């Protein structure tokens, strides 16, 4: 299968649904090892992104993702705003000109997104940040050859779960040092919802 403009728009919409539904849970995660606003930030940003996309008719996936990126950048704030903004912007750029989006192009776009996050956040894998989910998903996409909703959702969940045992060395959670162990990283949780949303779209064959 390939991703159509409608699929990509549905992805953002479904991400928003999941984030709204888990807004309080995300905030609780951020209260444990951060400042308790992650759910609020993400819910605000994805709400606006969904609204923006619903108001427009798009002819390219890249355009959907670019509007998503710009909205997240200007509405989320905090550490996660520029990082998610960068991730979607890099993905958008990589997808430009491919319509519908084939698997390989998307996998390459994810790699670009990961590089963008790394550069912006000066983080590497294992520092207990949203990068850990994006990076593991990019690697998974690189290993595989076609979209598989089931496996992708599993991969996202497991990547998120794995942050639980890590010691945070970036972002607010790093102030907790070893005490950050045992808590899921909030940004990884919301990243996992984003990939689960994509999995839903793929499974639904939308």
């Amino acid at each position, binding site marked *: 299968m390939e991703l159509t403009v409608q699929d990509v728009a549905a992805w953002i919409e479904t991400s928003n649904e999941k984030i709204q539904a888990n807004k309080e849970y995300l905030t609780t995660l951020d209260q444990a090892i951060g400042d308790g606003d992650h759910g609020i930030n993400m819910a605000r940003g994805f709400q606006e992104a969904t609204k923006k996309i619903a108001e427009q008719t798009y002819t390219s996936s890249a355009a959907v993702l670019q509007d998503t990126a710009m909205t997240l950048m200007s509405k989320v704030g905090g550490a996660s705003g*520029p990082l998610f903004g960068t991730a979607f912007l890099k993905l958008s750029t990589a997808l430009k000109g491919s319509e519908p989006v084939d698997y390989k192009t998307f996998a390459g776009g994810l790699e670009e997104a990961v590089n963008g996050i790394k550069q912006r956040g000066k983080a590497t894998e294992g520092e207990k940040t949203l990068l850990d989910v994006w990076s593991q998903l990019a690697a998974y996409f690189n290993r595989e050859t076609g979209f598989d909703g089931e496996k992708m959702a599993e991969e996202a969940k497991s990547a998120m779960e794995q942050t639980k045992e890590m010691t945070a060395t970036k972002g607010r959670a790093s102030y907790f040092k070893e005490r950050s162990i045992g808590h899921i990283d909030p940004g990884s949780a919301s990243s996992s919802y984003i990939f689960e949303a994509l999995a839903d779209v793929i499974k639904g064959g939308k």
Partner: protein
Amino acid sequence: MKKIINDPNEVVQEMTKGMAVAHSEQLHQLPGTTVIARNDAPNENKVGIVSGGGSGHEPAHAGYVGKGMLDAAVAGEVFTSPTPDQILEAIKAVDGGAGVFLIVKNYTGDVLNFEMAAELAEAEDIRVEKVVVNDDVAVDDVSSRRGIAGTILVHKIAGAKAEQGGSLEDVKSTAEKVIENVRSMGMALKPCTVPAAGVPSFELAENEMEIGIGIHGESGIERKDISTADDIAKELTDKILGDFDFSGSDTAVMVNGLGSTPDMELYIVSNKVQAILTDNGIYVDKTFVGEYMTSLEMAGCSVTLLKLDDELKQLLNEPSNAMAFQG
């Protein structure tokens, strides 16, 4: 949640509007933003000074907008860094041709968003420089140290330098000198509640305090039984003195309240801090006691120490008409 608010999601908009209306002789709000700027901005050939960050730290940062301090302050959502587009608006509004200087507190969110804004501004041919304040000695790793109350002294001194006609490079090197020479350490007795969250951001038992806590409730060094004001003053001051050698120096001291600690308690702390400094052969040139960098209605305080040379002393004493800074 006991708060005097309307809609928890509108607190920042209503606050900035309230500020602009209340102090319209001096300040205004950039339309469609939560940026508060001086009425006389941009000042031709003066370096524009912009700071900002999450809201909930009032009077930081809008309270420091005024002649001799900031040209504009950008207010993010509560405890959430403002976004690049808003920061960019502030930069554009205060650029008088001599460039714009950004004073950023060292939080990932603030650093990332201000960095992106700087890139956007440079793309529009505005010269931008920045410093990142990391005065909080509660964090061991120097690169992760948070920016707390010491930031206000950076605002004051960089603002005075710009007002005197310093170039963008001058302002930057003076601000860097302040950052090299300033250290802070805080503690809390009671948490605060972010309006949109509705519940306290952490818990402290009736008899507990947390030493080294951040201004958003980020974890500190140690949680323990409440002790006396003298013990608390000593613990905070000793940690600062252990991190930087202030002996024999002239200094400025700030005893800052986090939101619900009465001035009475701050002066009791200040009283002891001064005694400790005197015992250590440290001379206090200027003392600030009050709420400068708060954390909503958190109870607690921080102590800040800045080593002064002649330049810093002179700049610190320059007049300022910012609402929240006693010249």
